[in-house]
């Protein structure tokens, strides 16, 4: 049913309907409204889950390891410095192949301190072995939670997943969201059946140490599982579409890309503004299209290559920067297009909450058309 609600509340409802058995999280702006709402739901009996209050994000995700290892569907949420504090635990979760789902309300990392949006936090954890989804709007943000659990818990995958949505820009925005009913969610996402779990009657150890004779193979297996996730995501997204009308089978999604000369590549809420910009530019005769990356890990290199093979130039918009290199998405898109001759130009923008307007997207297209790229966009040179 279509209802108007804050992004964070929509996500909390989606999490509730996914029936997590254990939630451990530590509040941090702009994620707070999600976990506050879930804590309320547990406290007032709407959600039959164990809500573990902890003293830090490190503890939150560590508690999740225990819960997930014991066979519970487990949830957490964080952002920015909180995610940074979880760094070590993130690797443990994925290495132990625990299908925890965690919402990231994307926010810039300090210093300098910023509570506002960019995607540096989750992008910085791109190597930690979690699936990473990026939502364009609050509809996607909610739907992707069901899909994330389904994929993460699949025996072919058994990997944890981030569902990333832009802090404030989505988390604090009221907009209509079509919420599924509990019955619908139950049909799509059955109760969690752990592949293996800690059980004192049938003991195992998890996350043992691997000697040099085995470690490489474990990393290979982990990578293979992530690669298998591509098909599982497609299937889960297709099934979602068949049941509820919103098809998420594609890891990347084109918008007016078929006949485009210039393709923009972006992730997250930026894609909405870009679509409006493209419509305006098309009216002015510019053949511009968008390739939205919905799933950044596993990285859909082949899909990106296929989708962009016909364009004359590619402009990649990054709300992150690998300091001393480029934006992470630009680097990987260029890698996906290795051997192709079109220029792939990167633009770092929107960091720390800097607003991105339609006029900015148009300016970037002009820059790309004149071959200028691999730069920070929108610098206030008067303060430099």
């Amino acid at each position, binding site marked *: 049913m279509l209802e108007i609600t804050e992004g964070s509340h929509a996500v909390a409802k989606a999490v509730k309907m996914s029936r997590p058995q254990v939630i451990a999280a530590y509040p941090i702006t702009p994620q707070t409204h999600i976990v506050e709402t879930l804590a309320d739901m547990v406290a007032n009996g709407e959600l039959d889950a164990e809500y573990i209050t902890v003293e830090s994000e490190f503890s939150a995700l560590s508690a999740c390891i225990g819960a997930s290892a014991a066979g519970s569907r487990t949830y957490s949420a964080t952002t920015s410095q909180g995610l940074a504090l979880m760094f070590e635990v993130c690797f443990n979760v994925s290495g132990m192949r625990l299908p925890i789902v965690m919402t990231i309300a994307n926010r810039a990392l300090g210093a300098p301190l910023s509570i506002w949006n960019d995607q540096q936090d989750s992008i910085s954890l791109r190597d930690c072995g979690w699936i990473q989804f990026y939502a364009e709007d609050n509809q996607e943000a909610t739907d992707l939670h069901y899909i994330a659990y389904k994929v993460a818990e699949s025996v072919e995958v058994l990997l944890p997943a981030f569902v990333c949505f832009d802090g404030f820009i989505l988390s604090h925005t009221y907009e209509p969201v079509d919420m599924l009913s509990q019955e619908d969610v139950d049909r799509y996402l059955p109760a969690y059946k752990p592949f293996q779990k800690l059980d004192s009657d049938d003991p195992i150890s998890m*996350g043992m140490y691997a000697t040099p004779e085995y470690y490489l193979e*474990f990393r290979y297996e982990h990578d293979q599982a992530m690669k298998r996730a591509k098909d599982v995501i497609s299937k889960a997204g297709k099934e979602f579409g068949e049941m509820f009308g919103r098809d998420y089978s594609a890891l990347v999604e084109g918008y007016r890309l078929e006949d485009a000369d210039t393709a923009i590549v972006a992730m997250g809420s930026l894609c909405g503004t870009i679509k409006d910009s493209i419509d305006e530019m098309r009216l002015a005769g510019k053949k511009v299209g968008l390739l939205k990356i919905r799933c950044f890990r596993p990285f859909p290199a082949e899909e990106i290559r296929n989708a962009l093979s016909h364009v004359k130039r590619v402009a990649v918009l990054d709300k992150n920067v690998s300091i001393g290199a480029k934006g992470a998405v630009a680097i990987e898109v260029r890698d996906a297009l290795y051997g192709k001759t079109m220029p792939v130009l990167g633009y770092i923008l929107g960091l720390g909450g800097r607003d991105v307007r339609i006029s900015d997207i148009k300016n970037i297209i002009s820059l790309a058309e004149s071959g200028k790229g691999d730069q920070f966009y929108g610098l206030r040179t008067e303060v430099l």
Partner: protein
Amino acid sequence: MALGIGCSSRPGKAGNNKTGSWRVFKPIFDHDKCTKCGMCKTICPEGCIEESEDDFFIPDETYCKGCGICAEECPSDAITMEQEEK
């Protein structure tokens, strides 16, 4: 060994790991000095010292690594470490 998902594994038995071959020095128990206090059995990291029928203590050479903690801690200095011929 096939890899367990997430590096998981069934619990093993320490008994399968015959650590006696690690040994360079072997504890020699002098029953004349021994007061049967049991300290050696208590502190043995390998848990391989057993009490005999006449209440003396005897290390199980299958597992004794020759670490020498028993000799170090024996209140009566009844244990000495001697190089083992191999």
